[in-house]
C-alpha cells in the first residue's frame, strides 16, 4: 500500500465530495467559534467544567447506573440492559413482537448505528424507517452517515434528488426546499402508521431519571407524539448527575454542534405520557447499552466516554475535512472516532489501529471539545498500544533514519548541509518513497534548515 488507509481513501475521494465535506465542516466550525466567543467572556471555562462533570460521571458509573435504573423504574419506565449490539437489537425485536408491532419510526441515534438496528429489524420482517432527513436519505441510498450530526455532509442536492426520484418520491427536483417538503409529506403518514418510536438519548439525569432528547427537525417529537410505544437506546455513559447540569451541557451541545443557542426541540421525558394526554407512548422502554463501553472504561482512554456527540471535533479537524467521514470505516469518524472506533472493536482493535495515526496531533479537537477531552493524548496512547501489541503500520514512512538524526547532534548538522542541497535538486530524484508520495500532493517549501539555531543564538537576551 502506497499510503495509510485514510490517506488512500482521501487520495481517491471525488473532488465534489471533498469540497462538500470541507465547506460544510469549515463553516460549522467558524459559526461555532463566533457564537461562543460573542456570547461568553470565557467559553473555555464552561468546557472545562462540563468535562469535569462528565469525567466524574464515568468514574462513578458503578453508583450512577443503579441510581438511574431505580429512577427510571420509579417513573414507570421498563429498563433493559444490553451488553452487546446483538443483545440490544434482540431486546428491541422482543419488545416489538410482544406488542405485535411491525412498524417502527426511528429518530437519529448513534447507538443504533453501532448495532445496525434498522438492518437487523428489516431482516426480521419489521419496517424500521429513519425519520431524520439526512438519515432517511442515507437509508434509501443504502449509504452510511459520514458525520455524527450532519449524516449527509458528503452528498450534494443532485445526488439526493436522483435518489428521491428513484425511490418514487416525485420527479427529479434538486431544490432543497422541495426535497424537504416531499420528505415531510411522505414521513408524516409513516409516523402515524407506526406503533413504535425509537430514539436515542442525549442525557439521562440520575437525579430525576429524565431522558433528554435534542433535535432540530422535530422528528423525535413526532415519533413520540404518533406512536404508542417508546424505546430509547442509550449508551451507559450518557448520564449526568443532576438536572441542573443539563443547563451547562445543553448550552454547550447546541453551540458546539450546530452553532445554535439551543436545539429547536429539547425534550425531557420521564416516562409514558400523562393520563390526560391523548397522544404519545403508553409504554416506555430504556435499553442501557454497553457494546464495548466497559472496555473503554477499563482502558487509559476512558476520557473519551465524556463525549456528547456534538461533532465539533470533526468540523475542525484538517484530516476529517480532507478525507471525509467514510475514510474512517466506522460509525464514529473524525477525531472522536479515531479514539473511540478502534477501542469499540475490543479484541479486533487491530483492524482500526491505523485510525489514531491519521492525525497531525495539532490539538484543535481538544480546543473545541465541549467536554474538553484530551483527544491528542488519547491518540498517542492508542498509537503506543498499537506499538506494544506489535502491530505493523502499513503505508507509514519508516522513521528510523529520523530517530537517528534527532538523537545525534553531529549527524543532524551534517543533514542540514545535505538538506540545503535539496533546493538545487529536483525532488523527483530523491530516493525516499515516502517523501515522493508526500510530494505528489503538495509542494515542498524551500529548505531553510538551521534557521532556528541561528535565531536561538542571536536572539536578544531577556530583560
Amino acid at each position, binding site marked *: 500500500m502506497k499510503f495509510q488507509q485514510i490517506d488512500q481513501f482521501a487520495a481517491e475521494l471525488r473532488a465534489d465530495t471533498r469540497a462538500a465535506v470541507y465547506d460544510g465542516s469549515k463553516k460549522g466550525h467558524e459559526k461555532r467559534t463566533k457564537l461562543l466567543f460573542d456570547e461568553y467572556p470565557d467559553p473555555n471555562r464552561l468546557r472545562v467544567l462540563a468535562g469535569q462533570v462528565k469525567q466524574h460521571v464515568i468514574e462513578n458509573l458503578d453508583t450512577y447506573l443503579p441510581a438511574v435504573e431505580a429512577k427510571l423504574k420509579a417513573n414507570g419506565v421498563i429498563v433493559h440492559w444490553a451488553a452487546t449490539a446483538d443483545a440490544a437489537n434482540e431486546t428491541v425485536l422482543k419488545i416489538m413482537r410482544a406488542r405485535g408491532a411491525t412498524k417502527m419510526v426511528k429518530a437519529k441515534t448513534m447507538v443504533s448505528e453501532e448495532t445496525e438496528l434498522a438492518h437487523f429489524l428489516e431482516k426480521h420482517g419489521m419496517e424500521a424507517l429513519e425519520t431524520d432527513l439526512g438519515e432517511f436519505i442515507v437509508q434509501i441510498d443504502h449509504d452510511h452517515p459520514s458525520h455524527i450530526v450532519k449524516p449527509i455532509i458528503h452528498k450534494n442536492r443532485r445526488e439526493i434528488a436522483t435518489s428521491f426520484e428513484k425511490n418514487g418520491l416525485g420527479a427529479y427536483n434538486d431544490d432543497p426546499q422541495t426535497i424537504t417538503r416531499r420528505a*415531510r409529506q411522505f414521513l408524516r403518514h409513516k409516523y402515524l402508521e407506526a406503533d413504535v418510536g425509537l430514539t436515542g438519548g442525549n442525557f439521562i439525569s440520575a437525579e430525576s431519571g429524565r431522558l433528554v432528547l435534542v433535535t432540530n427537525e422535530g422528528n423525535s417529537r413526532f415519533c413520540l407524539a404518533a406512536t404508542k410505544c417508546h424505546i430509547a437506546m442509550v449508551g451507559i455513559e450518557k448520564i449526568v448527575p443532576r438536572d441542573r447540569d443539563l443547563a451547562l451541557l445543553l448550552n454547550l451541545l447546541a453551540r458546539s454542534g450546530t452553532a445554535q443557542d439551543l436545539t429547536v426541540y429539547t425534550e425531557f421525558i420521564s416516562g409514558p405520557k400523562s393520563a390526560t394526554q391523548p397522544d404519545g407512548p403508553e409504554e416506555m422502554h430504556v435499553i442501557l447499552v454497553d457494546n464495548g463501553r466497559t472496555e473503554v472504561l477499563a482502558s487509559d482512554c476512558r476520557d473519551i466516554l465524556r463525549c456528547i456527540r456534538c461533532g465539533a471535533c470533526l468540523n475542525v479537524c484538517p484530516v476529517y475535512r480532507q478525507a471525509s467521514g467514510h475514510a474512517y470505516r466506522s460509525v464514529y469518524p473524525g477525531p472522536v472516532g479515531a479514539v473511540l472506533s478502534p477501542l469499540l472493536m475490543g479484541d479486533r482493535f487491530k483492524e482500526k489501529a491505523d485510525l489514531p495515526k491519521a492525525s497531525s496531533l495539532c490539538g484543535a479537537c481538544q480546543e473545541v471539545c465541549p467536554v474538553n477531552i484530551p483527544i491528542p493524548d488519547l491518540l498517542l496512547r492508542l498509537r503506543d498500544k498499537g506499538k506494544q501489541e506489535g502491530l505493523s503500520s502499513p503505508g507509514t514512512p519508516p522513521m528510523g533514519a529520523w530517530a537517528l538524526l534527532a538523537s545525534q547532534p553531529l549527524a543532524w548538522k551534517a543533514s542540514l548541509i545535505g538538506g540545503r542541497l535539496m533546493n538545487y535538486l529536483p525532488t523527483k530524484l530523491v530516493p525516499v518513497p515516502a517523501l515522493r508520495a508526500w510530494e505528489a500532493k503538495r509542494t515542498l517549501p524551500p529548505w531553510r534548515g538551521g534557521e532556528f539555531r541561528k535565531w536561538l543564538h542571536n536572539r536578544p537576551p531577556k530583560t
Partner: protein
Amino acid sequence: MSDDREAILGRVRSALAPLTERAALPAYDTEIAVLRQLLANRDPLAVFADRLRGVNGTALTDIPALVKQLREGKWLHGYCDPALWPRLAPHFGPEFEVETVYDRTRVDDYAFGITRAAGGIAELGTVILKDRSTSHRLAALTPWVHVAVFSRAELFVDLPQAIAALGDDPNIIWCTGPSKTADVEGILIEGVHGPGVQIALVLD
C-alpha cells in the same frame, strides 16, 4: 436481560477498581452558562420577542395581531385547544374554520394549531409545552403554524430557572423556533416535520 445487567455492572466495577481516586463533581453556579449581559436591565418579554425573532419565530401580545397574521398567511383552517377557544373565538372572523377536536386521520387539514404552553424562556426565545397542559401533542406539531399560548407571568428569565421548574410532568418539550434542517448542503430549510411557523402568543 438480567444477565446483561450483572455482566455490565461487574465490568464497570472491575474497570473502576484500579482507580485510586475518582474525579469529584465540581461545585459551580449555573449562572456561568447564562447570557446575563443580554438580559440585564431589560424586560424579559422584550428579550423573549427578540430571541424568538432571532430563530425566525414571532412573539405576539394580542389576539387581533394573531388573527391578522393567520389571515395574511391564508392559514384559515386549524385546531384550537377547547380551553382557549372561548377567549380567542370573538376575534376570529367567519372566514376561519376552527376545530376544537383534533382528528389524527386528517393531519393535513390543519394549517394551524393553537395550544396551551406552560411558559417560555426569555434568554432563548423558547416556548415550554408540558404534557398535562397540552391538549394534543400532535396538534402542536403537525400543522404548518403552531401558536403557543401562555401568560406573561409564566415567562422564565433564563434556562437554569426553567430547568429548576421542570417539575413532575412526565413529558416536557422546549420548542425554540420552527422545525428546521440544514442537512441538504447546509442550506437552512424550515418546517421539516414540525411547524414551519412558530408563534408565541403571550397574554396578560
